[in-house]
């Protein structure tokens, strides 16, 4: 488990980084190294040159501009552990999702943008980005461009990023106070990848679902936006299900779960989790994430009303 020989460059600007990536050699970007270092030690990744962007100023910025959150390429996972780090329901969603990523030491190194660029099918951030209509900012030798998260992921570890491009940031639209967030993950131990996880938000107006967003983690060879399930929820009356681990059969959240499992998910079998089981888990977790989102929305609305009394 020792990496093959490689060259190492530490650019000081985005332009230098892009030049290093575009020099015609097999180059890998090093941000947190969460995945890259392991792959190199296993010699499954054998880059000719490692481009370490950690010394590029400005990439570690997390900023809010109007209704948009912008996360720079060096913002570490642990920046999102506090729900208040990002305003509103998006902050809640991030804080729920981030604690399912590896261990605290890894979260202090790994980055959100790095996870997006790596494109692991079990990555929580990839599914969150797809569900929340995130936009990735890329810089290459041909200049800057933007790619919507929905079109960014092409398969396991395959993305729309060109070899000479650096993902410099990702932007998320910030949902309003009428939205609630939920995140449900299923994995065998705290340490391992998700067998399945689900990110969901519900926007509720007048007691009815005005918008639903559902992202599926590890439910296909890439992150999935469960659009069929989202459509089925539109206009549904939001009735919180009774307590208990099981949703009543005909509940709209249970129905959405079944639709997500059959129409949206395309699970890939893995050791100890066959396709049938993963579909079933998608159905259960969509229901649970939606329930959590509805509860979050309700308490958010209560606080909101309380604040205006």
């Amino acid at each position: 488990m020792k990496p093959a020989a490689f060259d190492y460059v530490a650019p000081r600007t985005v332009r230098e980084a892009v030049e290093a990536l575009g020099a015609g050699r097999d180059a890998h970007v090093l941000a947190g190294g969460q995945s890259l270092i392991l792959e190199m030690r296993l010699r499954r990744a054998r880059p000719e040159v490692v481009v370490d962007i950690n010394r590029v100023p400005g990439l570690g910025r997390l900023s809010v501009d109007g209704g948009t959150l912008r996360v720079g390429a060096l913002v570490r996972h642990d920046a999102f552990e506090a729900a208040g780090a990002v305003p509103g329901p998006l902050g809640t969603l991030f804080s729920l999702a981030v604690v399912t990523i590896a261990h605290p030491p890894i979260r202090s190194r790994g980055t959100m943008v790095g996870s997006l660029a790596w494109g692991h099918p079990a990555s929580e951030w990839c599914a969150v980005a797809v569900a929340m209509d995130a936009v990735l900012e890329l810089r290459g030798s041909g200049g800057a461009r933007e790619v919507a998260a929905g079109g960014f992921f092409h398969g396991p570890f395959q993305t729309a990023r060109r070899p000479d491009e650096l993902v410099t940031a990702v932007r998320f639209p910030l949902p309003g106070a009428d939205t609630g967030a939920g995140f449900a993950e299923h994995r065998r131990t705290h340490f391992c990848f998700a067998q399945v996880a689900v990110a969901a938000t519900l926007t509720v107006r007048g007691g009815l679902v005005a918008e639903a967003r559902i992202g599926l983690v590890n439910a296909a060879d890439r992150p999935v936006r469960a659009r069929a399930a989202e459509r089925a929820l539109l206009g549904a009356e939001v009735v919180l299900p009774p307590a208990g681990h099981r949703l009543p059969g005909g509940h709209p959240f249970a129905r959405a779960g079944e639709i997500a499992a059959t129409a949206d998910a395309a699970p890939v079998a893995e050791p100890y989790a066959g396709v049938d089981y993963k579909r079933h888990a998608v159905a259960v977790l969509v229901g649970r994430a939606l329930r959590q989102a509805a509860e979050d929305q309700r308490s958010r609305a209560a606080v909101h009303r309380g604040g205006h009394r």
Partner: protein
Amino acid sequence: MRRWARREDERLLTGRGRYVADIRVPGCLDAVFVRSGVAHGVLREVDCTAAREVPGVAGAWSAADLMDLPACPHAAGDLQDLPPVPRTVAVGLSPEEAVAGREWPVLVKDRVRYPGEAVAVVLGEDRYRAEDGAAEVTFRIDPLPAVVTPSAAAEDSVRLFDGLSNIAFEGSAGRPIDEAVLQGAAVVVEARYRQQLLMPTPMECRTFLAVPEADRLTVWAGHQMPHRLRRELAALLEWPPDRVRVVVPDTGGAFGSKSALFPEYVAVAFLAVRLGRPVRWIEDRLESMLVATRGRGQDQRVRLAADAEGRLLAYELTIDADVGAYPHLAVGLPMQTAWMATGPYTTPQVRATLRSVLTNTMVTYPYRGAGRPEATVALERSMDALAHRLGLDPAELRRRNLIPPASFPYRTPTGRCYDSGNYAAALDLALTTLDYDGWRAERARRRADPAALPLGIGLACYVERSGGEPGGLHEFGGVEAREDGTVVARSGTSSSGQSHETVFPALVARTLGVDEARVRLAEGDTGEQPQGVGSFASRSAQVAGAMLVHACALLVGRARERAAGLWEVPVGEVAWCDGAVHAGPAVMDLAELVKLTGPLRVDDRFAAGMAFPFGAHAAVAEVDPELGTVRVLRLVAVDDCGTVLDPVVVRGQAFGSAVQGIGQALYEGFAFGEDGVPLLAGALLDYLLPTDAEVPPIEIRDTRTPSPGTPLGAKGAGESGCIGTPAAIVNAVADALRIADPGLLGTPLTPETVWRAARAPKLPERPV
């Protein structure tokens, strides 16, 4: 100043431990093995030419390049933990016959029999360069069909050795069951269980550093049996043993996986001697996952018969055991399961039969528990199934059958003689500690509430064996008093994390009545302690502890004789008290005595009896039937290891062992591809270990029934947890789900397994 719990802790917990990989030897080469990615196949060609051209590579060899590398010795013929299979076994096989014609080569000669088997070795100036070289070795293997379970391999449709059966050994314990008893029984539970293959997973993988100097070889290795390693290496090199020294520095765990001589060790020792240069092999995690020894690996069938009152009538256990690709110690290991099949019960008829079967996996070897968890899981899962069938409380069913305290020594139908025990006391303590009645009420409440997650309670009573088998129940060592007032305790054992440095000096200090701080332990170095057996089978406290107490008594005798001579009084008038000789008003401590009379050192060999630790474990588990996840809410482990030498250390052993038991029940296991290669691309993300986040609240309690087999009364403490815990957890899950077929819950209890079991037919409702 901070007081550390153990002597070792100050060094180990402040980063000052010294492991084999920390030892810097100038000019040392790193060995890397080129490994087969195929489970079974014919090796056509290996070409190391390009590897030799890689900068920093000192050499690269295939088997053809090293035709004179000696073969790996088979331990089966010279078992230290298990004796040769008893001659009473009515079959014509002996271990030698099991091994004959099935040689395990150091590097593959013509046939690959397990994934990861080494086809070449590359030496480099460091591990990076050696791996660069290994990447340039080319080889071709024509794949053959692979068999990875003993049941499949026993059919012999794919043979590992041409012309020889995959069944390397057949054995049995106990007389055949009288079928009339089974027919007349009120209930007969029949079930099949698979005990999955497990990895021992020490934190430090295997290590081996060979340093040749003139006509001698010093080996540094994390090892449980340094003296055996020295004997075997000397025999391989055709040297007298005193030309080889084995030193065991700090070692990061073993759990049974570091007691043999492995192909890699042979290659490294041989190349070091041949090149006249130090060579080391530091196994990395991926290698370890692929080619370190496995534990368990049994396909079992049981029949357990009882009368209507729940009195056990007969128990039959049939085992197909996974030996791995070469017949090694695992050929005889399943006999341990057979001999222990009776468990803690008075069952009059018990019969266990087994086949040891070769498969295309790395060799099976003792792993913490070594045969006893397999016996306990089969029996205790069947006991819970029997209780459900009879409508009896599982605790009550056990109580009715436990061997009563007055029956010891107790001779079992499967050939064991249990030394001492109070099995019911352990069970009662487990139930009280758990609050059994409280959890039963909670279980009933949840069964009536559809919103509640189902909850189950699982029990497991066990008895195990510690110390070793006849012929291996002794240890060498001694005690030396020095002029400076210090005492050196020597022992042939070898710690891989069992706190010997803390426990043995304290024991010697207590026995002699001297200050503990003045006693130092010397072990794990064949240069310092020339003879030894080692640390395995939970034997160190039981056997070496007794040996040290015996040596102390010899030392005291010598000291009294010397004092009698000095003072010119009869030896009967010299008393020993608080580390000093006394006669009337005259007092002289050990240091003074040694100054006046010269060096005082005793060395001896001491043999103990076999001991049978026992206990009762209880688990409460909650199941999410929608996802199949299991949450262990509470685990109680009551273990009886006789006289306890150090409660903190024993507790640590019980806790760690219980966590490994949780691993067997819920997480650990290999998934194999169709080609027979384990799916380990994600390393420890694929083979899951319980981590701190998965450890439930565990309560450790003990009862203390001394062993009559030694003057010390200690029994083994190292393995109990992983023997009792797996069955308790699986029983808790089965109880929560109330499933009719216990065999559905194959371990590890992955969410998918539990989810499928949750949808299976339920047991009929019974009034509780």
